């Protein structure tokens, strides 16, 4: 079996943030010691609320946002430094899809010109075959041939996102990082794009990191899911398991907060309070101020992410170790 396509170890990203105009800059750990492994062809979902560091993590996985500590290996090789020729060459193998396709596209270029750009930049397809490849890509993402000469503003939101995905696929990447790719789309179009991403991924054996706040979409597309809270992974498991029987109190609250048609609001866990300011991280477990089950140890000691059973990790003092009972 082949090794992981991407392996990240103890990633840390700190930003300097000023409190007020004249405040002293204080460090904010947006990503605080995250380790991940992504196998070829696998989809890892990353969920969390705004400010949990999930987008920063996505950018770090591609080397766009350099890590202050920790290391990333792509296909067994250490990630080259941002901006170096080696890194640029590697970018053909790993692509990024953002939430807002209009911001990701150049308004002055036609769709086909934009899809052809990565082919030119990475010198992948000779000029005479480029049009054929673009037509192939457009049909793969469900764009009509007559839309090739359209400009981004002439397309609908769903069609624009298709164009962005076609462009990302142009260089035949092995890894696709999608940051909220369907959040801006309507339900009926969202389903079209999610299905298309799944098909393209299976056909081309692309590994995918799917970042989203929408648990329902993540469950549908991801094989494995990591839940982030304030820069750390608090639980990770297969997507079938994690939404069925969430262990971490935060994951439980997240799952419970998803409105399900026909299920009344009563009896759901509604978390009190808001995610804390990352610049002012609570002591111990960062979730303890909002946790309905917090005890003394939660307030003082941060729980490490530990294996609960095979293929399942959680960072919580209160989650029992199902593999072996906790020694007294």
């Amino acid at each position, binding site marked *: 079996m082949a090794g992981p396509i991407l392996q990240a170890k103890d990633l840390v990203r700190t930003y300097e943030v000023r409190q007020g105009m004249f405040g002293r800059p204080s460090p904010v750990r947006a990503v605080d010691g995250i380790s991940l492994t992504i196998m070829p062809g696998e989809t890892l979902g990353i969920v969390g609320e705004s400010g949990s560091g999930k987008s920063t993590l996505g950018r770090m996985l591609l080397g766009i946002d350099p890590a202050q500590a920790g290391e990333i290996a792509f296909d067994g090789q250490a990630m080259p430094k941002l901006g170096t020729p080696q890194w640029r060459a590697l970018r053909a193998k790993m692509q990024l899809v953002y939430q807002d396709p209009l911001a990701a596209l150049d308004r002055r270029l036609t769709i086909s010109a934009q899809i052809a750009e990565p082919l030119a930049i990475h010198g992948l397809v000779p000029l005479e075959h480029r049009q054929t490849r673009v037509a192939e890509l457009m049909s793969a993402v469900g764009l009509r041939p007559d839309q090739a000469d359209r400009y981004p503003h002439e397309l609908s939101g769903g069609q624009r996102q298709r164009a962005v995905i076609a462009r990302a696929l142009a260089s035949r990447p092995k890894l696709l990082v999608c940051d909220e790719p369907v959040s801006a789309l309507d339900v009926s*179009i969202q389903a079209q794009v999610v*299905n298309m991403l799944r098909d393209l991924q299976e056909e081309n054996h692309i590994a995918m990191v799917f970042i989203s706040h929408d648990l*329902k979409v993540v469950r549908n597309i991801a094989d494995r899911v990591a839940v982030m809270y304030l820069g750390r992974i608090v639980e990770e498991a297969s*997507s079938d398991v994690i939404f069925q029987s969430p262990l971490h109190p935060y994951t439980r609250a997240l799952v419970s907060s998803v*409105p399900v048609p026909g*299920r009344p*609001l009563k009896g759901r866990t*509604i978390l009190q309070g808001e995610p804390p300011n990352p610049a002012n991280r609570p002591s111990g477990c960062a979730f303890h101020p909002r946790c309905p089950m917090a005890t003394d140890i939660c307030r003082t000691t941060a729980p490490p992410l530990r294996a609960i059973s095979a293929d399942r990790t959680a960072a919580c003092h209160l989650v029992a170790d199902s593999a072996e009972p906790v020694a007294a």
Partner: protein
Amino acid sequence: MTADPTRNLVELRDLKVAFDGVQVLHGIDLDVRRGEAIGLVGESGCGKSVTWLAALGLLPGKASITGSVRVDGDELLGAPRPVLERVRGKRIAMIFQDPSSSLNPVLRIGRQITEALAIHRGLAGDAAKAEALRLMDMVGIPDARRRFDLYSHEFSGGQCQRLMIAMALAGQPDLLVADEPTTALDATIQAQILDLLIELRAETGMATIFISHDLGAVSQVCERACVMYAGRIVEQGKIDALFDNPRHPYTRGLFDALPRLDGPRTRLVPIAGTVPNPRHLPEGCAFAPRCAHTGPDCLSERPQLRFNGVLGSLACHHPVGAAPVAAQPVLEPA
């Protein structure tokens, strides 16, 4: 107030809106009874927000609006500004998706709420401040007294939405129109705001219009819902009936397209195609080009919205799902 409690609070009749000659709203009929919660569901561009912006005279001047909007029998469409001002914010309050852009960034929060109290209820000074603090408490702003003099950027997105709701409540409205109030918020905060809206309605007895693309959220806040497509209501009914047995293929499609959090992981069922351009609406049923149940009549003749008593209303020539058993009110089972 001279209002007759049995009369509908708001009645929309054949409300039509056109921008630059392009018609986007094709005749909306909707009754809002006192204290009831109605959901308006549909995709972007279906006219769910425009309906209420038009009703309250909040659309730009280039919009041409026809039809009738009556609040307790008084016509609002074409009414002079003073009449509108007595209704807007006072009897009908509206909150929007993005709370931080609806609040004034250079005015202190307390001042913005007391301003609303001064306009709608003539309160001033300490009385206004006391009432503003009560409203802030009511919507769940912790430590309201200390945060009365803060600016909107010093609050989180969820708290800004709570403050918007507090301002909307300042006029003690009979109807709160909430336009995608939770869309921009995180999942756990979204649940808090939905909870707050339900609580406030129970406490104050105000009617609620909940505009959302999230069917799950609508089902929790509302008793009945209207599904809109391309500027028309295509199906309307009680939440349970609508969710258990959607009759319009579009409503059905919306449910099928929704990924689920429970049950087996299956492939999503999208609705093919896209929403039609309002400039080039198909003849006949606007949903026909995307519908799997079309007959020849769908392409030629537009289905009218037919009322079916307790079962709600439907605009479709070939409905899906089980036909309702009783056209008459169902008797209580023994």
